[in-house]
């Protein structure tokens, strides 16, 4: 059955590629033919899995690039299919017919909710957990619910080395019962704050004993330097630390190794640090890692240039139902030095399922725009009125707020000539709705 399952998967993957179809179906069919096919595959010496609420795809892209630059043949899920069917497609497609993976290293993006299924068969040698935030709560409930689900996965791999974000008190808990653990994170820097920038702190109380958690400083959300004075649970000593961060000059450093930032955001710094850490742990030289990261260009199209009429625009794709992702985008726009306009589009909550749930809008720190150079905000899409109600709670003195649910009307409004640069924030589910109404530019076009 193994041979047959691999063969069918390869044929379906080939046909799917010709038809430009998704990457889950071949794996799903293979799993029907041979449900334990993954346990019959001979993996590479090292297998890296990456999970977390935000930044999985970017982190995996970076890790794969670094290993490639180090001369290794990397098997990784470029398409981002991170559930068990997608992982099955990836591994079988890249195996010999006898089931030996043809590569030097496997790097898997792993969905938080599906790692516990995948790890029954595929035991990673290294498991990177980047963060746990409020994300798609209609599916994921809350971060501690997901913590427990990932814990099921961690319990399946007691001999795996965990690479954990030490700044995240939720994730740090996995270390309490695992033998081999390394930490990455960020030292205190000019951007650290005494209060969180978020409207909530999921670790206001210690996740271990429920006493109030003390923070020396925050980086953002619930990430920072924490210590529970009651049970002693605290930020660990970091094995890989961001010890320099200069967003003005787009520079960061990990353990003293300077890296140029393509996108000046504190949020991506953690992804870069985790990629640095895992590659360093697996023997790639610091110089190869830094050189690759300096030249790395994101391929996921999350930041794209566009033109509306004669106005220059920049789209920053965020995740709907994820206030941390929105805060990241808002922080970027708030740091813009020149006067600018901002359009926020929420038209479909999700591209995967239907819901009208908008509570997450109330978790976004729109308040940070008060101190920005944004002069005009367009609230657009089906849920423009919901955003407008949220905006009524904020005193935006000096900022004009335009509410326009209709996207064709929005296109006309943002095309009206202005000397200000235009920024747009929306989700994967809605970005095509913007692109179809503006001129999308290549990253190098001005």
């Amino acid at each position: 059955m193994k041979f047959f399952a691999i063969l069918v998967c390869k044929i379906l993957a080939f046909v799917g590629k010709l038809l430009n179809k998704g990457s889950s179906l071949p794996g799903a069919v293979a799993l029907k033919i041979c449900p334990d096919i993954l346990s019959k595959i001979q993996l590479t010496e090292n297998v890296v899995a990456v999970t977390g609420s935000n930044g999985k795809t970017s982190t995996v892209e970076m890790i794969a690039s670094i290993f490639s630059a180090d001369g290794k043949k990397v098997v990784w899920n470029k398409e981002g299919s991170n559930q068990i069917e997608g992982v099955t497609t990836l591994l079988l497609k890249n195996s010999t017919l006898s089931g030996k993976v043809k590569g030097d290293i496997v790097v898997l993006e792993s969905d938080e909710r599906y790692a516990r299924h995948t790890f029954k068969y595929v035991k990673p040698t290294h498991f990177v957990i980047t963060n746990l935030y409020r994300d798609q709560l209609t599916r994921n409930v809350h971060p501690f619910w997901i913590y427990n689900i990932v814990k099921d996965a961690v319990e399946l791999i007691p001999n795996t080395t965990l690479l954990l974000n030490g700044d995240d008190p939720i994730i740090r808990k996995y270390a309490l019962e695992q033998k081999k653990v390394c930490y990455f994170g960020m030292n205190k820097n000019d951007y650290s704050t005494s209060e969180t920038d978020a409207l909530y702190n999921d670790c206001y109380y210690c996740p271990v004993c429920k006493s109030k958690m003390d923070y020396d400083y925050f980086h953002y959300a619930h990430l920072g330097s924490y210590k529970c004075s009651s049970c002693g649970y605290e930020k660990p000593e970091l094995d890989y630390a961001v010890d320099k961060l200069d967003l003005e000059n787009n520079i960061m450093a990990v353990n003293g190794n300077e890296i140029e930032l393509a996108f000046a955001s504190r949020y991506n710094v953690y992804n870069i640090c985790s990629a640095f850490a895992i590659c360093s742990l697996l023997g790639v030289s610091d110089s190869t890692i830094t050189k690759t990261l300096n030249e790395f260009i994101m391929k996921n199209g999350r930041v794209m240039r566009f033109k509306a009429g004669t106005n220059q625009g920049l789209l920053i794709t965020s995740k709907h139902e994820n206030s941390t992702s929105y805060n990241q985008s808002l922080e970027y726009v708030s740091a813009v030095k020149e006067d600018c306009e901002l359009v926020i589009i929420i038209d479909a909550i999700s591209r995967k399922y239907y819901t009208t749930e908008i509570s997450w809008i109330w978790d976004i720190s729109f308040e940070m725009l008060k101190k920005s150079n944004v002069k005009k905000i367009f609230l657009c899409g089906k849920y423009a009125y919901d955003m407008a109600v949220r905006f009524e709670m904020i005193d935006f003195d000096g900022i004009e707020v335009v509410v326009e649910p209709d996207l064709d009307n929005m296109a006309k409004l943002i095309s009206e000539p202005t000397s200000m640069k235009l920024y747009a924030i929306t989700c994967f589910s809605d970005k095509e709705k913007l692109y179809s109404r503006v001129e999308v530019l290549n990253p190098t076009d001005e």
Partner: protein
Amino acid sequence: MKNIRILHLFPKLLSLYGEYGNVSIMKKYLESNEYSVTVDEYENIESGIFENADFVYIGSGTEDNLIEACERLVPYSEDVKKSVLSSVWLATGNAMTLFGKNIERFGKLTTAVNAFEYETKIDDVKRFSGDVLSDKNNIFNTEFVGYINTSSIYNGIEGGLLKLLLNGKLGNDKTSENDGFIINNFIGTQLIGPFLVKNPVALQDIYFRITGEKLILSEESYIVKAYKTALSELKHRVSQA
């Protein structure tokens, strides 16, 4: 100018889905009608805090935090029982869990506030979630919109605040379509997040209970337009079901 005192219980411990919006929106409309509003937030309960409260609000939490909140609240059960007879209360999401007789979780029984005659079981494996739309009923002559996301199963609640048309099996006991309850001025609903923002009629109802005055909302206001958007979407879904 009349003073209104809002009591927000556990704004950090029980705060999962933007629940603070319920307090913010009520404060905004009270102030816009010349009321002076004080919001007192309590993470730890103290004796006497319920006295003179016009409106008490409590929202959703993680399952662990619910139990923690229960332990903090139960020593003041008698104060709570007195308060629910005199003040307006709103419990959204899974906060209703705290006010029954007890809570069963992992086979262990925890005594709850015992203000009302029902029992709660927390299921840490199965989650009950989905968009909901309620029918008009004799309490509210309008539909309610929202989302349920809970692991609490309630047994012993007679009737309900709302009758769910969409995802009816998300009702209190997870077999019927009755959601929440209303006893005196205590309103409990499983609907999460800024419930009063999503449902202007609920905002008007509670505003009236607090002040004895009608809150007029324009059809052109964003809050009403947002509600109509959700209503239209959910009705469309019901018609397709």
